[in-house]
Structures are given as structure tokens and as C-alpha cells.
């Protein structure tokens, strides 16, 4: 499964990094970095990150390899 962050929408608030710290991180300049692919076992944390994003900038593709 795969996630994409709309980098135009993203404002680097960092709430995704609280919900799913293994997949989202703010770098030293405060800019978001993230892992595109994730496993089923992390689905809950990823869904929480998607729900928590103030800009609703994270999109999940369940079917992506």
C-alpha cells in the first residue's frame, strides 16, 4: 500500500509525524519527509495520520504495490 502527500497543500505542521512517526518526519529545516510504501500492520497509524492532517494533504492508495 502506498501514500502520497500533496506537497502544494502540505504546510509542514507535523501532526502526521505524531500519528505515524515511523513513516512521517520533519527534517532539520522543518520540512516533511515520508515513506511512500507501508505494510498492512501500520494501516491504523497511517489512517490516523491522514485523519489528523489539517490540510488533508495525504492520500492513500490501497491497491498500489
Amino acid at each position, binding site marked *: 500500500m502506498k501514500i502520497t502527500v500533496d506537497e502544494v497543500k502540505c*504546510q*509542514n*505542521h*507535523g*501532526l502526521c509525524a*505524531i*500519528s505515524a512517526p515511523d513513516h512521517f518526519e*520533519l527534517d532539520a529545516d*522543518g520540512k516533511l519527509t515520508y515513506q511512500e510504501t507501508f505494510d498492512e500492520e501500520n494501516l491504523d497509524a497511517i*489512517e*490516523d495520520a491522514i*485523519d*489528523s492532517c*489539517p*490540510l*488533508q494533504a495525504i492520500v492513500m492508495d490501497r491497491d498500489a504495490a
Partner: protein
Amino acid sequence: MATQPATLHLDISNAHFRMDSEQVRKARDAHWYARTDWGIAVLRYEDSSALLKSPLLTQGSAKWPAQHGVVEGHFDEWWQKTLLVLEGDEHNRIRRLVNPAFSPRRIAPLHAKFQALADGLVDEWIDDGRTEFASQFAAPYATRILCVMLGIDENDWKKIHELASTIGLGLGITIQENIARIDQAVVELTEYAESLVRSRRESPNGDILSTLVETRDEDAGKLSDEELINLIILLIFAGIDTTRNQLALSVEAFSKQPDQWEKLASEPERYSAAAVEEALRVDPIGRWISREAAETFQYKERTIEKGTTLHLFTMTSATDPAAFDNPDRIDLDAERSPHFAFGGGLHHCLGHFVARADIAVALSTLATRLTDLRVEEDAEWLPDSGNTGAVSLPITFTSRS
């Protein structure tokens, strides 16, 4: 080395200070910040955006009661454990657990309730051609929505509104002289919150509070009853007066631009979200977001010493001509950059999706039912600093029906 342009001083504690003034615009033209008696005021969009999310700044409000002579008691004990002032792991653990309960998909089912509430309140006074908007719409609407979300009997809304207003005095500079009643309000709300939590533990019903009661997380544990009760009081403290005042400010802002009010009325589905964002941008209740430097650091040409207070001016940054075309005008068709009326970074407002949704329903309902909207001259406003809003907002209008 090039000479830096001079910074100006803004007297933000003066009763006559106005955010929407030539003085503030001049200060923003001159420099990215101005000096104030309480630290620096950040004025421009680019700098507000960067500093708002900087990990070198903390929320900085933990000291507020002590700075005003209150060092113990129910309010202080509650305040020191609220999400507003917690930092680091404790903040992040609680925030992580509560965020999903306030997501758009959890709030969507409440829209029909918001709509019925808005229409019911307008029905009460639409035939009069006038009303006092703050008490006859904004206060009951904002408070009853919170009652719905927490499962509080809506008939108790006046009591809840009164308790919320009393706790709100804790953020005023008169906190010390009011502390006995503020403490008493915290005690009453704690008892209220305890009974709500008890009833949801016994019989969960799928509402937001039930979700919070059931919240568990393998890594982060779960919310303790103390944390839940603290959060319920925070929602009442932070969710009622803010929405009430933002509704009044939004109506006032639109009354000055009837063309945009008519545009909203003609296509409410299309424009309601933009109407909320534009109202929050040009007239936000939170006039500034406070931060404190957790360590000494360099930002642009200025060294910001540890402990420095920064006020990030929300209206000023969101009407910065460097970031917005025709910045002081509501334009429902414009593509706008995000404003910072809900703060930002890890302390970004928790309830913003609820606020956005309920203000959208309110504004589109009002626009589709009322035209020729005018604010009367005897409207009374809170000081133009910190959190502002209308004490009373008499309006006149013509019913469209």
C-alpha cells in the same frame, strides 16, 4: 553590511490599538517584525509561516497564571495539564490519541444537526427584521454544537455557556481578581465531565466522547480518566467563545461586502468553504498566536533570545500584500494561501474541522435566508487584542422569503 530598516513599536495593550490600522500596515511595510511591550510582533506572511512551525519555539502559555499572581488552585492545576500548554512526549501522546476523533469523517454525520440548529435559531427572529446576533444566534449555536458533540443535554446550554465564559476569564489580565469564581467553574465542569465519562463507559453510543473513552493505542497506552476530563473542560473552554465570536466577526465582515454575501447566497454549496476561509483570513478571533523561544537562535538578521515572547499577528500576516492579491477584500473566487487563524505546528487547533464545518453551515444558512445585512452602530466589541469578538452585535436585514 547593509543597514536594516528600523522596526516600529506597537502599543498592543492600549485600548485604542487596532489591528486594522495604518500604523500596523506601516510597521509591516517597514520590517518583518515590530517591537511591543510584551516581546516582538511578527507581521509578515513568510515569517509567520516559518516561525509558527519552528521547533525552536514552544507554546509558552504555561506561565500565564503565575505571571498574573495565580500559582495554585483548580484552574491552575487544570491549565498546567491541558494540551494547550503541554509540550514534548506527553503532549504528543495525548494529541495522537485524540486527533482522530475530530477528523472530517467523524464530523460529517453532524452536518444535518448543525443545519437544523441554524435554521431553528433563524426561525426565532427572522420575521422581526432585526436581532442581537451574538446572543440570539452565535452563543446558542456554538454552545449547543458542543453539547451535541459531548452528549450534554442541550437544555443545559445556558449553564454550559456561563461556565465556559467564567473559565474564559482565566485568560484575561483580571484572572487574579476573578480566580475564586474561575476555580468554582472548573470544579463544576469537572463534576459534569466525570458524569459524562461514567455514562459513556457504561453505555457507549458512537459519539465523539464515546470514541475518546474507548481510545486505546498499543504503543501510547490510553487516555486516563484525568486526561479525558481535562480534555472535556478544554473543549468547553476553547470551543465555545471562539466559535461564537468568529461567527459575529464573520457576519460583520460580510456585511461590508454585500456582493460576496449575495454570491454565497446564490451558490452556498460551492462557496461556503471559501466563505469560512476568507472570514477567518480577514477577521480572525485570535488576533495573535503566542510562542516563546525555547532557546536562543538566529532568525534572519535578529538574534532571538531564549524566553522571548513572539506574537504572530494572524490578520496582519493573512492580509500581507506580499502573499495575497487585494488582501483586505473577501473574494470567494480567489485562490488564497492558507491563513494561520488556527495556529500551526503541533499545537494546530484540534477542533478546526468542527469549527470550519459549523461556521460554513451557519454562514450559508444566514446568507440564503437574509439579505440587506447591516450591523447597527451600537455594536459592542471586545478589545482588539488576544481573542476578540462582539459583546453584542445588533443587526438588521430583510428576509428573503
